[in-house]
């Protein structure tokens, strides 16, 4: 294809000085919006983490007063400080909800799609900067609505982040009224925000690439974020629709999910997971893309099999639409449908294998630099593999029978989401920190944080596979009331200790992050010797990015190429014009 991007060059070059409010609060600059998303979603990550600690307290030490628990209102906690069963279920629900919808999704998509797409494709900003700003404010609004659930009578919903009906559709079953409504409303608002964001990302990638930035010169991070945006645009409206029906069942007395009047409980599950599985790929594809960039950089080698990496992303995204039923194997869904979903699910291992082995291929015969982003990226590859492989167990329908809805699933969730997405985020945050704030995060602290997290994380989540095999169900308040689970309690206790350590270790990261804002070492222009377009700009980059639309001369991964050697370095940025390079055609060719 000869499509060569021609970028919009509206009056971007001259920017009058703006008031603080316009510059940092109601900004339409994609970089500021990305940073706003970063702070907000790190806050929600912290909220999710605090909820997780209370979950772990209860699972490790049931019927023991929780330290500091007494400050919670009596709808949550018994007078002696023991967590109430209602509260436990709410903790689990809100932990899942916050982590998925308000921590990882905005961290990956809100922050990095915003921040990276224009910078990496040589655009001046998003296609629709104003809509972009709205997307952020709606996401924040949604998060606050969700958070408000804790402060209304009876608290937040009690039916898990998957919000299965009829539990969630009938307040007499869940015991929650306002909190349930807030959940639905928040999800609708969040969906709106995501759709607005995704429309922006898609349009920007299609229309605003700099001259020379052909489709197959785009970094894999941009590819992944682009495909993720497509998933977002098509998946979130379905969740919105479902949440609206749930809301109406609660407030208008409709009967969508009310079996007595002919409604269907499975309908919710179909709708939720039809959204839900693409959603989990929304949570992993951007991570994969950014990790690809970082691994190529850390290995000083071109990415191994760039094209198949692109097709693997597309393949995962495509297959992601036809596997949702693997969450419903035990739901009473037609078993024939179960067989179909099993096969499509297993096939996802194939593009995933391409990705994993191509990352290894990239490192093969490289010249590895173990900077903090690289360490976390390697952590990502090794841990995502474990999470993905545990998915194979559950994908095989007969094996899912004993494993479904046990802690084995919880282990899978955290291996893919913490070991996968969150490690990738540690990598990405460290990697693009200088671009955001002009300073480096402390590498020593970063390494300590990585190693401690890596160990504590495995100690926390690996044993969950075993207690899950032993049969411990998810979302149960007190495993010790089952005789067959009593012998496992020491392991639960062990997990809790490890989880507390894991949580504490994250404050190293928080400290490093906040401290470096002010005291970090000043970043050189291209701190990681990288090839990306973003490093042609000063750190942090000015509003409007480039004064003049840049040209792109080559692919993103030209590390250690002969041309680079000739220049006496081992990298050759996309924006560098060698004497042999011709300028790309400026206007769009169709």
């Amino acid at each position, binding site marked *: 294809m000869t*499509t*060569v991007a*021609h*970028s*919009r*060059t509206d009056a971007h070059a001259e920017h009058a000085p703006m008031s603080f409010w316009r510059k940092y609060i109601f900004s339409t600059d994609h970089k500021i919006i990305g940073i706003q998303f970063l702070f907000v979603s790190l806050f929600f990550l912290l909220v999710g983490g605090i909820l997780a600690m209370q979950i772990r307290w209860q699972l490790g030490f049931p019927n023991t007063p929780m330290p500091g628990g007494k400050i919670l209102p009596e709808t949550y906690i018994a007078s002696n400080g023991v967590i109430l069963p209602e509260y436990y279920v709410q903790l689990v629900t809100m932990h899942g909800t916050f982590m998925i919808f308000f921590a990882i999704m905005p961290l990956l998509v809100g922050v990095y799609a915003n921040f990276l797409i224009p910078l990496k494709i040589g655009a001046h900003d998003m*296609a*629709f900067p104003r809509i972009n700003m709205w997307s952020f404010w709606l996401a924040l609004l949604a998060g606050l609505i969700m958070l408000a659930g804790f402060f209304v009578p009876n608290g937040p919903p009690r039916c898990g982040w998957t919000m299965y009906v009829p539990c969630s559709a009938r307040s007499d079953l869940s015991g929650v009224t306002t909190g349930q409504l807030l959940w639905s409303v928040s999800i609708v608002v969040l969906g709106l925000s995501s*759709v607005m964001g*995704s*429309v922006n990302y*898609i*349009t920007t*990638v*299609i*229309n*605003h*690439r700099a*001259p020379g930035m052909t489709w197959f010169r785009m970094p894999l991070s941009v590819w992944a974020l682009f495909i993720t945006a497509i998933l977002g*645009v*098509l*998946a*979130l*409206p*379905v969740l*919105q*629709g*479902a949440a*609206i*029906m749930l809301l*109406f*069942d609660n407030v*208008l*007395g*409709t*009967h*969508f999910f*009310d079996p007595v*009047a*002919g*409604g*269907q409980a499975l*309908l919710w599950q179909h*709708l939720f997971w039809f959204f839900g599985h693409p959603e989990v790929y929304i949570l992993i594809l951007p991570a994969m893309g950014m990790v690809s960039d970082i691994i190529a950089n850390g290995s000083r080698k071109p990415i191994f099999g760039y094209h198949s990496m692109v097709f693997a992303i597309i393949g995962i995204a495509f297959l992601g639409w036809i596997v949702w039923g693997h969450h419903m194997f035990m739901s009473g869904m037609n078993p024939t449908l179960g067989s179909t979903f099993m096969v499509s699910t297993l096939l996802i291992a194939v593009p995933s294998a391409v990705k994993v082995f191509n990352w290894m291929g990239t490192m093969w015969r490289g010249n590895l630099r173990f900077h903090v982003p690289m360490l976390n990226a390697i952590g990502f590859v090794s841990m995502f593999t474990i999470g993905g492989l545990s998915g194979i167990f559950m994908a095989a329908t007969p094996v899912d029978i004993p494993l479904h809805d046990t802690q084995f699933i919880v282990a899978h969730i955290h291996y893919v989401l913490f070991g996968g997405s969150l490690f990738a985020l540690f990598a990405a945050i460290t990697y693009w920190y200088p671009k955001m704030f002009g300073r480096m995060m402390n590498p020593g602290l970063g390494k300590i944080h990585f190693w401690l997290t890596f160990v504590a994380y495995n100690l926390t989540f690996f044993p969950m596979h075993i207690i899950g095999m032993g049969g411990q169900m998810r979302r149960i308040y007190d495993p010790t009331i089952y005789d067959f689970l009593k012998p496992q309690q020491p392991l639960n206790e062990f997990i809790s200790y490890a989880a507390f350590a894991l949580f504490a270790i994250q404050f190293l990261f928080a400290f490093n992050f906040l401290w470096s804002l002010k005291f970090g070492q000043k970043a050189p*222009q291209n701190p990681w010797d990288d090839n990306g377009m973003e490093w*042609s700009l000063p750190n942090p980059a000015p509003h409007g990015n480039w*004064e*003049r*639309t*840049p*040209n792109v*001369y080559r692919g993103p991964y030209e590390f250690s190429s002969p041309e680079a050697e000739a220049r006496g370095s081992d990298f050759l940025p996309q*924006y*560098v*014009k060698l004497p042999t390079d011709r*300028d790309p055609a400026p*206007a*769009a*060719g*169709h």
Partner: protein
Amino acid sequence: MTHATQTVDSMRPPFPAESGAGVYSNKLGMWVFLASDVMFFTALIGSYIVLRFGAPGEWAKPGAVLNVPLTAFNTFLLICSSVSMVKAYAAIQDGKKYFLRPVPGKTLRDGGLKFWMLVTILCGAAFVGVQLIEYFKLVHEGFTPAGFRDGSLLAEHAAADPIKYGLAVAGLYGSSFFTMTGFHGFHVTCGVISMTYLYFTKVLPEKYSPQDYRGIEVIGLYWHFVDLVWIILFTIVYLI
């Protein structure tokens, strides 16, 4: 550090020729949004289909509960507004910014952008109005999102002829009817509001020209899409 950038401004075509899909960003963005809206209506309409297939009883006969002639008229209104929208688009392409202008030798005068946009807005608003009347009448007769209201007129009819009125699944009927048509109506309302806004900020001040009528084209896409959804809804909700 070589920036190695080169300006391309000199070669910038006069009008929003943006690359990639070969369409300017607003239009591309609107299409992507419409794709996402398709998925939104898929959730609602799909649920209706699934519920109706799985319903424990017969659905009400067409026309038993709903007022089909009234809605047929409403359909007509929406079709008219769609064609007036596309006429507005054609008018501005030809540079007709005016309201009405006499044509020599003809009694009918030629409509310009201002005329056709006004017709579109009025038809759209009328649609919403008729839908509101429909809702009020239905609720008054006893058809609510929760089904037939106890003691209402419709509840009595349904008790007398449960098959015709689909008594067994009235709850599902009410739920899906009001949700689907309600969200469609919401879309129409949004369209009317944005078109009115454009009318006063852009159409009346004659901001559009044959060189740049992006706003008209983009809102037109949205408007036709809403019409398209109604065509589907009218058939599967009122006639089947």
